[in-house]
């Protein structure tokens, strides 16, 4: 069976998978072991550890509470003590449940005994403590009774002093001291027992007895004797009680010591048998888990290294067994593609690659045979194909560029494959056919005949070609053979060429030049070579003709451009001059407007006072009944107000021209503005007995623009109409329609007044213009109102127009866009409509600007 690549790959993959599963199994098994250990820790060791600590704590509690109880017995403490001692038993049982066999063997008996003993000892101790407490309490009372009996109180002492006589009193005092001494000695002994204090107690008792017998001996009355007796009897019982208490105390101390010893012993057992072993087991378990962990890490690392090794090995194998032979095969097939049919590959293995190599070798061998058979017939066809191809290529080259040098270079390159030559020259003739210029040489091989050289045509080789209008072939052994025939050939012959071919270049049946091929071989150019050369020459001739025409046109165009540039420069110069003039003029206009604005403001302040005080004077005159001065005052007021109107209009106009008039854009209802204007202008209009009609559709809607200026314009137009109309009709109409696609509102104010001639109408919008100066006298007004109307309507992006006939009234039409976007709309001089005449103030700038634009 063949050693197939597939089998090799399968084997490699199998090995890799086996290793992988081995590693996975190992990890799984290790994880299992870790799990078990962990479980043991969680289930047994942790509770055991906790329990051991609980037991230790419990033993401490037992000790502390017992000591406390002995100091100061109380039911609460007793309950606590009982609880701790019995708790210990429960802990023991719990521990034995968790412990292993060895541990049970070691500690079960000890702990059991201990726990039982603890309970009983604890009970004994507590009982003794109780007894001690009650005994010491009763003793306390005894001592107090003795005290009372021995010396009742100071007053009875004084009585006694009188009745007993002075000598008995110190005795009683001594007895009392003894009682106190015994009491305090006893207290000291109870706090810290030692033999000397016990001895002292008995010595004091002895002294007491002596004192009492002396007292007895000194007793005079029966009462005294009885008192001494009862003292003695009482002291005797007390003495017994003291001894009992001291004995009880000693026994209690003994038991307590034994109890504490046992607790210490218990602590020792706990530490040695329980806590330390549990700790060790815990540490063991932890170590085991860690070691398993480390082992797993080692195994994983080893497997990783082996895996990497396998991958490297596999790659190496693939490279040496597959890539390398395949590369060889590709190399060989590239060679074959490049034409080297001798290429073969070495067959080393018997797998698929080996088979491929063998098949390749066989195929190349077959092809080699077939190719060699083809070569001969191809040789013949190729020449023909080459010629056609070259012709086509040359045609493409010739049409691809208008630069003759590019054409010549490419042409030389191509023609070399079909016409034999070592040097090639192209000569171009002048129109008179007197001179030729060498336009191109393939190499600078021939002296005198270089690129750009001009020669006479007559007597030259090219001259002969031109004359024949046909190809000319010459061959020469040495320069002598040709010397006399053509003037130009001798340098060619001197340069070492032995045959030449001249081909005429025709354009529209006219010879415009010639191609000259020269060869170092002494073989004359054949008929077929000449035919090929003639064909390519046709194309070159076409290119030369085209290039000549192109060059002529180019020259003409350059001339034209130069003239154009000059013209433009002159225009630019002129424009700059004009712009400068315009800037100066505009600056002057601005300065003038600024001056006017300031002046108007200054004028208004005193006017204010003139009008105000005149009005005040009228009020006062009316009150004082001094009516004579009132008409004069009214004239002052009227003149002042007229002057104020003039000043206001000038101020507005100056602002417009200084570019300082801003628009305040807001949305407002059109009909309410119209109504306001109507109300305000009604008195003005009725003054000349005119009738006002207002036609404003209810659904006219709203505008978004400067309503104050609209109000001012409408009021202006209405007041003009009222001024120039008597007994007539004045109408105000509002329409809304789209003008050039813009939603517009059109205000029309018409009157049936005096009207005006076209000449007057034309000048009407200029400032300070009324129809003629006599009208000023007759009608008043500033003459600035219409000029302002025009400026405002332009600011708001609209127009104002006038239709009038002398004697037939006038109609003013303001057309405004319903909405304007921003406050920056143009000054009047950039949006002037064609039917209007520029302001006189800005007319200089305007005119210059227009001239520049034209």
């Amino acid at each position, binding site marked *: 069976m063949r050693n197939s690549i597939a089998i090799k790959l399968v084997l490699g993959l199998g090995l890799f998978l086996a290793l992988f599963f081995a590693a996975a199994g190992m990890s799984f098994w290790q994880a299992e072991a870790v799990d078990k250990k962990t479980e043991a820790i969680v289930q047994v060791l942790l509770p055991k550890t906790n329990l051991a600590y609980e037991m230790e704590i419990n033993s401490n509690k037992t000790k502390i509470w017992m000591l406390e109880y002995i100091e100061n017995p109380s039911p609460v403490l007793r309950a606590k003590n009982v609880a701790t001692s019995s708790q210990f038993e429960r802990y023991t049982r719990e521990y034995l449940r968790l412990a292993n066999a060895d541990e049970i063997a070691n500690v079960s008996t000890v702990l059991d005994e201990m726990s039982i003993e603890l309970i009983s000892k604890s009970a004994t101790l507590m009982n003794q403590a109780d007894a001690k407490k009650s005994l010491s309490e009763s003793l306390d009372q005894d001592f107090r009774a003795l005290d009372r009996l021995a010396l009742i109180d100071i007053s009875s002492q004084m009585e006694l002093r009188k009745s007993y006589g002075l000598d008995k009193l110190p005795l009683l005092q001594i007895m009392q001291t003894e009682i106190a001494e015994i009491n305090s000695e006893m207290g000291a002994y109870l706090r810290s027992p030692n033999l000397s204090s016990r001895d002292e107690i008995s010595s004091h008792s002895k002294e007491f007895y002596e004192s009492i017998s002396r007292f007895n001996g000194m007793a005079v009355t029966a009462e005294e004797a009885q008192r001494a007796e009862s003292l003695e009897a009482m002291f005797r019982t007390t003495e017994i009680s003291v001894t009992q208490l001291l004995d009880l105390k000693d026994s209690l101390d003994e038991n307590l010591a034994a109890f504490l010893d046992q607790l210490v012993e218990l602590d020792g057992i706990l530490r040695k048998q329980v806590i330390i072993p549990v700790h060790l087991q815990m540490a063991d378990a932890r170590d085991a888990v860690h070691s398993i962990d480390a082992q797993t890490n080692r195994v994983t690392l080893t497997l990783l290294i082996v895996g990497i090794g396998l991958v490297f090995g596999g790659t190496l194998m693939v490279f040496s067994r597959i890539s390398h032979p395949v590369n060889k095969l590709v190399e060989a097939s590239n060679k074959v593609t490049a034409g080297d049919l001798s290429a073969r590959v070495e067959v080393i293995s018997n797998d698929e690659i080996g088979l491929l190599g063998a098949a390749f070798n066989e195929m190349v061998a077959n092809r080699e045979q077939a190719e060699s058979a083809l070569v001969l017939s191809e040789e013949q066809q190729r020449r023909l194909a080459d010629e056609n191809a070259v012709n086509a290529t040359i045609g493409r080259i010739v049409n691809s560029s208008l630069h003759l040098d590019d054409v010549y270079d490419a042409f030389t390159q191509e023609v070399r494959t079909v016409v034999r030559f070592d040097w090639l020259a192209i000569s171009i003739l002048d129109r008179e056919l007197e001179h030729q210029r060498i336009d191109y040489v393939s190499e600078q091989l021939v002296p005198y005949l270089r690129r750009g050289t001009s020669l006479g045509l007559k007597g030259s080789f090219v001259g002969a070609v031109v004359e024949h209008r046909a190809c000319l072939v010459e061959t020469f052994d040495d320069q002598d053979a040709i010397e006399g025939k053509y003037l130009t050939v001798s340098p060619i012959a001197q340069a070492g060429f032995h045959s030449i071919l001249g081909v005429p270049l025709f354009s529209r049946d006219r010879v415009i030049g010639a191609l000259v091929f020269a060869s170092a071989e002494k073989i004359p150019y054949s008929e077929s070579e000449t035919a090929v050369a003639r064909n390519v020459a046709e194309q070159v001739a076409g290119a030369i003709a085209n290039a000549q025409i192109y060059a002529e046109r180019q020259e003409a165009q350059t001339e034209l451009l130069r003239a154009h540039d000059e013209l433009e420069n002159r225009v630019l110069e002129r424009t700059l001059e004009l712009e400068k003039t315009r800037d100066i003029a505009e600056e002057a206009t601005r300065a003038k407007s600024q001056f006017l604005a300031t002046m108007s403001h200054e004028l208004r302040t005193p006017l204010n*006072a003139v009008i105000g005080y005149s009005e005040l004077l009228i009020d006062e005159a009316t009150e004082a009944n001094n009516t004579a001065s009132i008409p004069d005052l009214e004239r002052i007021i009227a003149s002042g107000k007229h002057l104020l109107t003039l000043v206001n209009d000038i101020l507005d106009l100056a602002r417009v021209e200084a570019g300082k008039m801003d628009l305040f854009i807001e949305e407002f209802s059109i009909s309410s503005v119209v109504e306001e204007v109507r109300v305000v202008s009604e008195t003005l209009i009725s003054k000349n007995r005119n009738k006002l009609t207002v036609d404003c559709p209810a659904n006219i809607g709203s505008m978004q623009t400067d309503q104050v200026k609209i109000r001012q314009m409408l009021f202006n137009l209405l007041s003009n109409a009222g001024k120039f109309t008597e007994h007539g009709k004045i109408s105000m109409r509002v329409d809304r329609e789209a003008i050039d696609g813009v939603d517009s509102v059109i205000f029309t104010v018409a009157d049936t007044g005096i009207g005006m001639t076209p000449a007057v109408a034309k000048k009407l919008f200029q400032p300070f213009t009324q129809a003629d100066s006599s009208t000023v006298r007759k009608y008043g007004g500033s003459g600035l109102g219409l000029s302002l109307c025009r400026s405002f309507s332009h600011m708001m992006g609209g127009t104002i127009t006038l239709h009038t006939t002398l004697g037939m009234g006038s109609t003013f039409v303001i057309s405004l866009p319903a909405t304007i976007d921003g406050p920056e709309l143009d000054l009047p001089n950039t949006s002037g409509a064609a039917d209007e005449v520029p302001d006189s103030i800005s007319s200089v700038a305007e005119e210059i600007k227009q001239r520049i634009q034209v």
Partner: protein
Amino acid sequence: MSKLLLIEDNEMNRDMLTRRLERKGYEISIAVDGKDGVMKAKADNPDLILMDMSLPNIDGWEATRIIKGSQETRHIPVIALTSHAMAGDRERALEVGCDEYDTKPIDFFRLLTKIENLLPKKAA
């Protein structure tokens, strides 16, 4: 009798307006600049203030802002008087807290109407 505070720096305007308003039965107190005006607004507790906007020391805009910003004086109505009649003056005046706005030269009867509209309605 309503008490008006007139804040005006021009002596003639002040005199004329004071006399005309007094004739109409108002009690007038006077301040000659913005600072004086703010102080008098607090001290005199007027029923209404007529405020010229171009004043020395503190201008009328600032003075109005102070008066309208103070707890004691913010209830007093203020009528702004400007001599500029510039677009936007009215909005600016209302923005700083003025209750009304009028332009100079003053149309006396128009001003009277505005004053009467703003004065607190007295019990009949």
